[in-house]
């Protein structure tokens, strides 16, 4: 036991730092990989959060402004709840904490934009997408799930951080942002963050580049989870960045029709 604990000591330290949201990225990555399978660390995190909550009481406690509750109510009204992740039992007591690190900020309509994005400025694009609030850090005892979540997020980050010019258009469904198109060079990616899961046996989502009445199918993709995911829908395309408007439709069958039939979300790239 003692040897185990000694070996584990560095994770004990990281657990406290993680709960405090104070870890450096490399430590965070190491700890997150470890936490998924470690009950001791899950308890340490919860214990630390308890002490932190106590520390929050050692502060002046003024009232927030009256408008805040109204803003929250309004935002709640137009925000759908996520379905419980399928296949995950609702309350397995041994599961480590799951932390949702971000939430949508619907009160803030974000215009799309087209911008020559030099590498350093891609941060702005990243911030805009993170600002959509879909950056969930999911820690699950299901290691497979965790890894795929981390892999998805890495893919999104890599896509956004790749050097070069990018065209970015947020797409909305009933006023709610559900996807973001990132067109760069000959590749088009869709980051989905709120599109309904489709039945991949009988239908498919299609991404369209739209120009007035004309619509060009850029590629198809499926949505398999409510969580954020990156889909590369087209590559080897030319002129995929030229559109001022992008749209997503849900089509029966597995192929893109010549024209979109059931458009579910659209968004403009504006300069």
């Amino acid at each position: 036991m003692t040897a185990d604990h000694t070996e584990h000591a560095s994770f004990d330290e990281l657990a406290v730092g993680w709960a405090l949201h104070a870890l450096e990225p490399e430590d965070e990555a190491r700890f997150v990989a470890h936490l998924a399978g470690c009950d001791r660390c899950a308890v340490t995190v919860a214990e630390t959060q308890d002490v932190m909550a106590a520390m929050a009481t050692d502060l002046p406690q003024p009232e927030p402004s009256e408008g805040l509750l109204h803003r929250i109510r309004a935002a709640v009204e137009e925000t759908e709840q996520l379905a419980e992740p399928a296949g995950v039992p609702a309350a397995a007591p041994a599961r480590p904490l799951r932390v949702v690190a971000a939430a949508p900020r619907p009160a803030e309509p974000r215009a799309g934009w087209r911008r020559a994005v030099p590498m350093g400025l891609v941060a702005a694009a990243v911030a805009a997408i993170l600002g959509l609030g879909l950056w969930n850090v999911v820690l699950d005892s299901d290691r497979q799930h965790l890894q795929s979540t981390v892999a998805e997020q890495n893919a999104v980050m890599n896509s956004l951080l790749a050097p070069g010019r990018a065209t970015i258009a947020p797409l909305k469904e009933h006023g709610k942002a559900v996807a973001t198109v990132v067109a760069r060079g000959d590749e088009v990616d869709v980051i989905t963050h709120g599109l309904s899961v489709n039945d991949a046996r009988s239908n498919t989502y299609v991404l369209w580049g739209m120009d007035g009445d004309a619509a060009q199918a850029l590629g198809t993709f499926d949505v398999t989870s409510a969580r954020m995911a990156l889909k590369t829908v087209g590559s080897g395309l030319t002129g995929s960045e030229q559109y001022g408007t992008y749209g997503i439709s849900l089509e029966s069958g597995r192929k893109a029709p010549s024209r979109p039939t059931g458009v579910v979300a659209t968004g403009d790239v504006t300069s």
Partner: protein
Amino acid sequence: MGAVSTPARRPEDAAGDADVLRRIRAGDPTAIDDLYARFRRPAFALARRILADDALAEDVLQEVFLSVWRDPSAYERGRGSVASWLLAVVHHKAVDAVRREESQRRRRSLAEEEMVLDEPVAARDVEDDVWTRVVSERVRTALGGLSAPQREALTLAYYGGYTQREVAALTGAPLGTVKTRMLSGMRRLKEELGGAVAEMTGGALGAAPTPEPGR
């Protein structure tokens, strides 16, 4: 359910918190009002302390309450109280926000961070809430029981939103030392706070009959 008492809130609040969360899970939007009524003040106090800006702090609160509405399953039953979890989410979001706003915000100096601890409670805009006062005194006493470097490391990280490396730079200590101080400081705080924090078993902060390394 591990119904635990959460500092500054009466022990019976925990069961009510869990109930509010159940209603949110069931899709009842009015439950958000109740959650707000329960937590707006400690949540706002914490976000405001970290961000030093009321408007940004309110943005963080909106983000947090909406995230709870959107995905209430983020709270895992069986690990800590709803209150501790919610305040941890507030802390996390506020620290993210302060890192985003870094360029606009003049980070408070180390001396100012420490001054907060010396502010008399009576001078603060605190309602005459006896329970809050009692627990708050207890936290202050507990913080006072830490070694100066432990207190410095934890208050910079918690109230200041600094990373461990930033804390190391601010305090002139090696990173490894800062990590160790945060763990030992947390252990000490938990011990000092005793019943004010939940009893859990098997974690690194002790309280359980778990042998600790190096003892």
